[in-house]
């Protein structure tokens, strides 16, 4: 599947991502500045915080309790479309997914 990030400087980056990969791993593989993934996707750090583009919000699902609590005090402002990207896993239904990296 394809995924597009809107980067901190406003440019976009599109990449092919294998099913089963999570969106933090995909960002790290593509060297996306602002998505760090310090805890390796174990839901401990919130350094993989992204905003899901409006037209994709329904498809990526809702955060689970623990993720929701972590999002409550993120460094960048929490919005309705905030997610920890290590919790979004690539599959065909997300082909074309668009994520926005929080600006500093």
């Amino acid at each position: 599947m394809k995924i597009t990030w809107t980067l901190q400087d406003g440019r976009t980056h599109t990449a092919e991502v294998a099913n089963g990969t999570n969106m933090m791993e995909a960002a790290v593989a593509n060297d996306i500045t602002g998505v760090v993934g310090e805890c390796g996707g174990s839901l401990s750090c919130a350094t993989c915080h992204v905003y899901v583009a409006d037209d994709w919000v329904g498809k990526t699902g809702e955060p689970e309790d623990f993720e929701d609590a972590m999002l409550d005090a993120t460094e960048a402002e929490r919005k309705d479309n905030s997610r920890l990207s290590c919790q979004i896993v690539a599959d065909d239904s997300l082909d074309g997914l668009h994520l926005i990296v929080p600006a500093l």
Partner: protein
Amino acid sequence: MQRVVIIGAGQAGCSAAFALRKRGFDGEIILLGEETDPPYQRPPLSKAYLLGDMERARLYLKPPGAYTDAGIDLRTGCDAIAIDAQQMRVDTAQGPLTADAIILATGSKPIRLPEAVTGGLAGIHYVRDLADIDAIRTAIPDCKNAVIIGGGYIGLEAAAVTTKIGLNATVVEMAPRILQRVASRETSDAMRALHAHHGVTILENVGLALFLGDGSVKSAVLADGTELPCDLAIVGVGIRPDIALAQAAGLRIENGIWTDARGQTSAPGIWAVGDCASFPHTGAPLRLESVPHAIDHAETVAANVLGARTDYTARPWFWSDQFDVKLQIAGLNTGYDQVVTRPGGKPWSRSHWYFAAGRLVAVDALNAPRDYMSGKRWIEAGQTPDRKRLADPAADLKTLV
């Protein structure tokens, strides 16, 4: 600057290599690693990977093509053998390399038990490298009784995983309580209760005398004479920074490879990052053993290698997964004189807040992500919440500072 040689292809070395590129360095980057795997994450080694819940390839920090794509010359299975600080030369298993800058990212090595204790028996394992964990995973199907020496985070995680797999696990801790070196009595008590609940036996205040067996380990004899059946021994008694190369090269050593606030060692042009480096932190030398530090430190030091003049500010945090508890820690609890407990609503959930002279310095959050996230931000901003209200679970965290 034409060539940077990075010694150690772990978390810090890998981060430094990519940070150099990202900051526009267009010279040669050579990343030397003595292990045969490409750079990988260590935290899952004592968690999901040991449990068999995570594929090997998932451990790798970057996909295979990323190094070539970024023009990083990753040489795995290639040790650096010596450094000549005057000539700026690194001798490697594949021959000498001259460098304009050298970054030491050699990490740490586990403290090993002396031969008099291990008797040279098979079945005694350490928890540092992928090869260590692969050996444990290979042994596990034939084992029943795991004895874990050391009740720190690594030992407790190993106890949790071996228990989940179905072994009888016993933790042997020499200090009066588990986690004594790193956490408060409150946190030790909570983790002890968690392990007891899941059937782990925790023995405190008693050391290991020696292992017995014939060829491979059969039992562990403790200082008080107790003999525990043991066919799998896991030793997690701490680590030492890997300073061998730096010391032989004549660099200053001070609880690790000494660096200034920008990450430069006592030899100009040679830098140190991650677990192996000792850097100034609020006036005293500090060494940190964590992934977030390895990443942040490498990024700052890479910028300095390229001429920035940025002092490194550590923002310490750590996590540990044991059974159904996620422990998240922010700050450094050094010198604390008071601990405030904030009860939580969920199973095992609570947080312990460390104060030194009235100032919040650290928090241990057990299944309490909101407490962790708020605490981390307060500590980094130098803010201290009201202690009375902090202890009241009904008080909204957002109103405490």
